């Protein structure tokens, strides 16, 4: 397909999406949100443009039932991807809420990679994506009582991470062999505490780059609020099932952060994440709000054992209501054997504009 034709196809799809959403919104009185984004990436090896169009349609059927469907089209002019995002039905009961359908489940108290946030597989094809969770079909039940909340997740057909260029080898999966999650949380005025059990698919690149196995995890979250700062800790102890126990060890994963408002405009976050078998990584982030429109953040990750690092500097500008400009850079340090050194060729600057309707 020629480039001109691809551009025409993409624009037609975007236009069709807008028309469809508008008609649906008008005909059925639905709430419609659309987001159109374009991102430009530049580095010495490769320059690319990524277009993104997201459309979300939702509505309250009555005072208890809510429907949502979310679709996304992405294109880098070489490839067009259609992704179904979340598509679910909510039922809000007296003390219990139900969600049935494709959904993203967010667990964990720390920002970024939480060892307990494992209920969704990840799309690992873009290491720089803000959100790489893949929505999965599941039934979620949330029960509230006083300051506690109990959540149960049932995924009838567990999915593994999407690995770039590889076909995953998955174990037998059926209704009797599902992925499961159970989370019990308690909140007081100063702290939050959660206990978590999950059964999900995982893989160990040191054993096989494509072979997935079920593992059971027992973990928890702790959030403690000090005067103007907050400490967060997530931990999970992972136990492979069946035959994999012979050559994959049980493992403790952890992540902890501490964040403090240095001034009302400047937020600092520091933390550590790691596991028994892997090196610890220190994390830092400074977030400075220059004014109502502009924000600058400087983030860094440093691997203690391999002494390599990642730096991300980002500037955002709210250039109009519903329109955001973002510019930044990624820089990866040290040799190409380390965690971050392996991305040295991906050093790049980026510029993106997102428009919400």
């Amino acid at each position, binding site marked *: 397909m020629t480039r001109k034709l691809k551009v025409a196809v993409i624009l037609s799809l975007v236009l069709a999406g807008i028309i469809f959403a508008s008609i649906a919104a008008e005909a059925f009185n639905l709430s419609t949100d659309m987001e159109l984004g374009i991102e430009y990436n530049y580095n010495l090896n490769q320059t690319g443009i990524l277009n993104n169009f997201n459309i979300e349609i939702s509505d309250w059927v009555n005072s208890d039932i809510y429907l949502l469907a979310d679709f996304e089209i992405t294109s880098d002019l070489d490839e067009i991807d259609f992704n179904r995002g979340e598509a679910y039905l909510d039922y809000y009961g007296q003390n219990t809420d139900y969600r049935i359908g494709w959904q993203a489940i967010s*667990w964990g108290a720390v920002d970024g990679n939480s060892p307990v946030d494992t209920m969704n597989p990840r799309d690992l094809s873009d290491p720089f994506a803000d959100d790489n969770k893949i929505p999965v079909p599941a039934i979620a039940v949330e029960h509230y009582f006083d300051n506690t909340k109990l959540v149960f997740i049932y995924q009838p057909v567990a999915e593994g991470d999407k690995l770039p260029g590889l076909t995953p080898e998955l174990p037998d999966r059926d209704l009797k062999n599902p992925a499961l999650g159970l989370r019990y949380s308690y909140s007081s005025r100063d702290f*939050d505490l959660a206990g978590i059990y999950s059964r999900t698919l995982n893989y160990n690149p040191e054993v096989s780059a494509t072979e997935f196995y079920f593992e059971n995890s027992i973990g928890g979250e702790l959030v403690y*609020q000090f005067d*103007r700062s907050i400490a967060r800790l997530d931990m999970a102890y992972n136990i492979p099932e069946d035959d994999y126990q012979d050559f994959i060890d049980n493992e403790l994963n952890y992540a902890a952060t501490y964040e403090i*408002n240095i001034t009302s405009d400047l937020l600092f976050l520091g933390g550590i994440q790691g596991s028994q078998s892997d090196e610890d990584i220190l994390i830092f982030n400074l977030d400075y709000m220059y004014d109502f429109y502009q924000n600058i953040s400087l983030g860094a990750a440093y691997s203690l054992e391999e002494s390599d690092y990642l730096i991300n500097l980002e500037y955002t500008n709210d250039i109009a*209501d519903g329109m955001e400009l973002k510019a930044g850079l990624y820089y990866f340090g040290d040799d190409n054997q380390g965690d971050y050194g392996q991305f040295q060729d991906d050093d790049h600057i980026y510029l993106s504009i*997102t428009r*919400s309707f």
Partner: protein
Amino acid sequence: MKKILILSTVFALLFPVFNQTIIAGDLTGREILEESQTLDVVDDFEAEASLQIIRGDRTRERELIMLSIKTEDGEERALTRFTAPSDVEGTGFLNITYPDGEEESWLYLPAMGSERRMVSDERGGSFMGSDFTYEDISMTLDDYYHEIIDQQELNEREVYVIESVPVSDELADDIEASKRVTYIDSENLYIHQIEVFDLNKNLDRTIYAENIEEIVEGLFMPLRMVVETEDGDSTILEYRNVQTDVGIDPADLSRRNLSRPIQ
């Protein structure tokens, strides 16, 4: 993420509902301020609001739904949900202030998928670039010495001029102000205007209460508030569809409701 916080909490309490029947008489400065903060005359508050933040020739507008309630055990709960523009729609902020002044803040961003406990800010800190501060919202009278320093005419009304000075230098640093001067109608105790002075004792910003209307019988509140800073920035907050004593359930101002889609 921070930017979306903008307006977190109880703007409804900034210039609370007034009871028209109050007569100032021989009240002291503190007593007048106490009477003007007659939040207790209503059990709960619900309103739609629009917020304009103006920086030079750039203006941003936010549409909000605001609910607040004072519970039987003295907690003040405020829930703010953003309804427009589309990039912040669905964002919610829950603030709980306990009787001892301690606060708990929760943020919900639709893209984040779960509610999140937030770091409490400095009392003098801005609501993410708006010209209101946390102190404007939840000023504690005990933290100041109050004195009537003048009685004069303002906007063709007789007003008391009450100076409120922080009780300690540490507190002044925290609220980033050396004093607040409040202009209160001597007849009905409406707050017409508040001037806030910085730590160098220079005028920093002025808050104006406008369009004071009777929202239910005997209860008045300003439906428009304007903050103008000495740097030329300004913020305008306007209320619509104000309702009080609608019987809001405290459970509605909870983390569960924070993440529920806006109906």
